[in-house]
């Protein structure tokens, strides 16, 4: 202990294996690999929290009538599912990947701001507790339960809601601070700590993707923090930002929320869009196609992503001109996204492909996200949108956009780099079971939701008319298969940590990049002397 006290200062030092175990090491560590692992563990724990919540919802929706969950609890479950998945799973998991892999990929010894890095992570667990505590208290009969307004927190419902809402507001503040700190760190690291000779346009695409994510987060999170503070003021300090009786406007909240909420979609997409080309290139044994085009597409996606937010509000009542603008500008996003798809397909085209687990997940991500993308074109139509909006068609659409990228893409990336982290090759047969269970479970969950949405089922209802029963039953069965697939993933990762075939430094035959020049598993400190890029 004395040893820890004297040497356990949170500084990045050169003495590998310095901390002799114990939880204090994890609390104080400033090592990017430790912090990256903590982010990943935190993210995947939250994936199971959010997943458990939505499986309870799917259980309730298995057949018409209220069987297991009363409407009050149902509203809390769907709200927390959304907030937990977006802010608790998808963003931390991507940040974990960035923390571990960015320094390795750009030849830096660590992140530029290691203490900030530690702080950024350790804000997350209290924020997660803040967000979910009212839920568990509510289950035990204490208080009104968690925030129950849907993850969109629409005013005036969020003004009316119980004190779970206040907890959610403070959780959002903490999550926002964490994201901003993480983003500053990524930007500073990328701009200052690349290996000599690695110009911006020689940098790995993963770094470009995350750079854009960081820029977006710094743009949107302060706006969101301001917005939830206005809700807090309306709730407790008699302001009327969102109350027409006091000169406010409920729709103002929607603008603030979606100014954050739509770029958030690309915050979740871009780290994965940066990681996938590496996987395609490695398993097609062929260099990345259209590197520059992809970089510029990332920029275009981020730029356009900031100016399309009100396509979430076509039913809120907008002027004719606004509707036309938001419709056409939304369609414009299909171009940079199409560039990415084109480049990814051209990367594997005429390659020498093999289908190890990371490649399967990357390809699954490509195909399913493709469908998520083209259904977005249907929703962009301002006049047809009311038929999709807030119905299950839209729910299915955005799950086809989120799940294949934020979840399957993250799994592709984890499987791809896992040999570098653990020093062991994957168990391919378990990986394939995981993949096919995921594909079957995901499609069985969400294809019926397209149909039931067109038939007229609104989202966020705990009970539904009997004509929607068949599709809902199928969807629930699919959801439980998908949940099982995630257990297979955890089993596979734990098995890989415990042992397996020894991984080479370059774990995959076709893998390229600086991360594959260091030993597997990567030592505690890497690139203490920077590599030189020609």
């Amino acid at each position, binding site marked *: 202990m004395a040893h820890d006290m004297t040497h356990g200062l949170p500084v990045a030092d050169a003495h590998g294996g310095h901390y002799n175990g114990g939880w204090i090491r994890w609390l104080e560590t400033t090592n990017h690999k430790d912090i990256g692992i903590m982010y990943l563990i935190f993210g995947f724990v939250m994936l199971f929290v959010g997943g458990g919540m939505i499986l309870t919802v799917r259980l309730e929706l298995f057949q*018409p*009538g*209220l069987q297991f969950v009363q*409407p009050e609890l149902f*509203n809390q479950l769907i709200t927390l599912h959304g907030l937990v998945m977006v802010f608790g799973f998808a963003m931390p998991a991507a940040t974990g990947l960035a923390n571990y892999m960015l320094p390795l990929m750009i030849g830096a010894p660590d992140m530029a701001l290691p203490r900030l890095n530690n702080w950024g992570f350790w804000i997350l667990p209290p924020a997660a507790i803040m967000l979910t505590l009212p839920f568990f208290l509510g289950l035990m009969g204490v208080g009104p339960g968690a925030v*129950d307004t849907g993850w969109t927190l*629409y005013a005036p*419902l969020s003004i*009316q809601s119980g004190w779970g809402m206040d907890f959610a507001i403070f959780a959002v503040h903490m999550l926002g601070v964490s994201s901003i700190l993480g983003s500053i760190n990524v930007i500073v690291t990328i701009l200052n700590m690349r290996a000599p000779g690695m110009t911006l346009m020689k940098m790995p695409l993963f770094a470009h993707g995350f750079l854009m994510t960081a820029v977006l987060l710094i743009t949107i999170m302060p706006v969101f923090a301001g917005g939830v503070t206005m809700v807090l003021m309306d709730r407790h300090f008699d302001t009327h930002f969102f109350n027409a009786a006091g000169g406010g*406007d*409920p*729709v103002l909240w929607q603008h603030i929320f979606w100014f954050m909420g739509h770029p958030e979609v690309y915050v979740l997409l871009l780290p994965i869009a940066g990681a996938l080309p590496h996987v395609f290139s490695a398993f097609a*044994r*062929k*260099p*990345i*196609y*259209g590197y*520059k085009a992809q970089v510029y597409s990332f920029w275009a996606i981020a730029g356009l992503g900031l100016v399309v937010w009100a396509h979430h509000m076509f*039913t809120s*009542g907008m002027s*004719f001109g606004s509707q*036309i603008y938001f419709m056409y500008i939304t*369609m414009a996003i*299909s*171009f940079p996204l*199409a560039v990415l*798809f084109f480049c990814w*397909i051209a990367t594997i*085209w*005429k*390659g*020498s492909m*093999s*289908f190890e687990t990371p490649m399967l997940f990357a390809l699954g991500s490509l*195909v399913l996200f*493709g*469908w998520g993308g083209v259904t977005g*074109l*249907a929703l*962009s139509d*301002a*006049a*047809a949108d*009311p*038929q999709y*909006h*807030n*119905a299950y068609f839209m729910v299915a659409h955005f799950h086809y956009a989120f799940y294949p990228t934020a979840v399957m893409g993250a799994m592709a990336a984890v499987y791809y780099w896992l040999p570098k982290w653990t020093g062991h090759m994957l168990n391919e047969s378990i990986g394939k079971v995981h993949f096919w269970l995921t594909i079957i479970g995901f499609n069985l969950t969400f294809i019926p939701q397209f*149909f039931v949405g*067109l*038939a*007229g089922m*609104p*989202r*966020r209802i705990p*009970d539904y008319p009997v*004509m929607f029963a*068949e*599709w809902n039953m199928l969807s629930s069965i699919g959801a439980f298969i998908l949940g099982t697939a995630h257990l297979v993933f955890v089993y596979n990762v734990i098995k890989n940590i415990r042992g397996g075939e020894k991984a080479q430094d370059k774990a995959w035959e076709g893998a390229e990049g600086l991360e594959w020049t260091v030993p597997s598993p990567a030592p505690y400190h890497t690139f203490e002397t920077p590599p030189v890029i020609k």
Partner: protein
Amino acid sequence: MHFFYKLGLGLWVALMSVTGHAGYAFNLPEPVTPIARETLHMHNLVMVVILFLFFAVFAMLIYSFYTHRKAVGHKAATFTGPTNRKQWLWALSPFALLFVIDYGVFGIPAYHAVVLYEDTKTDADLVVKVTGSQWMWQYDFPSEGVSYTSRLVTPRDQIDSGAAKGAHYLLEVDNPLVLPVGKKVRFITTSNDVIHSWWVPAFGVKRDAVPGFLREFWATVEKTGTYRGQCSELCGKEHGFMPVVVNVVSQQEFAAWLVSKKQAAAAAAAPVETPVATPAPAAAQAEPAPAKAVVVAKSVAQ
């Protein structure tokens, strides 16, 4: 191109009708207003085009998986981008096609659909005010002085304790909205508390009811019948239990219904207004009463 569109549309419609019979609703409901027809047309067009695009690209990928793989000894190429004029043309042509699809095939009809959707300012035959509140709808016919609320009547034991569910489970109300067939109805919508959203899928319209603001939409229902929908903006605990039911009837039936409503309202209002010293002028009576008073009047009428 037109042939493929027809073919795709045919297959889509065939699939719809088959699954429709099996009890699996597959597509938007049969449209009964100009907007819903326009929307269904747009929807079918978009679906045919994106399904074609998706499966064309997917087929290319499958072809690539089988031919460009290591297991059959395919040697990897090394190209990283277009190098000559011909390759540039090949690389850019999908984007030209996408441009035509986005702003031509979809963009032009979508523009006209929005024009149609927003055509709330031209003369309407009838104005209906729809007010959402937790958790019911209130309908006012301002020029007729008719005003009433509409709530779910599905018995609780069907919801909570597994009693046999009726055909219109969760889609049945005490007082449906009644509209005349073939008349342009201008809807004005607002809310008493939080945001609600009024949606009848067969009408193709959904518009949020925002407290403190008025929003407009319109519908000309071309076919008599009973149409059902639900609130589609999360509005609290009973969000799933505030359906919309609209009875569309002939002009004569509508006129008769209005008269009966007015008589019921007058009968209910008479004793309430007796203490008032000066009788309110007719114009004032025509104005919609505040929500609470209407609820009272309604319960007295029953």
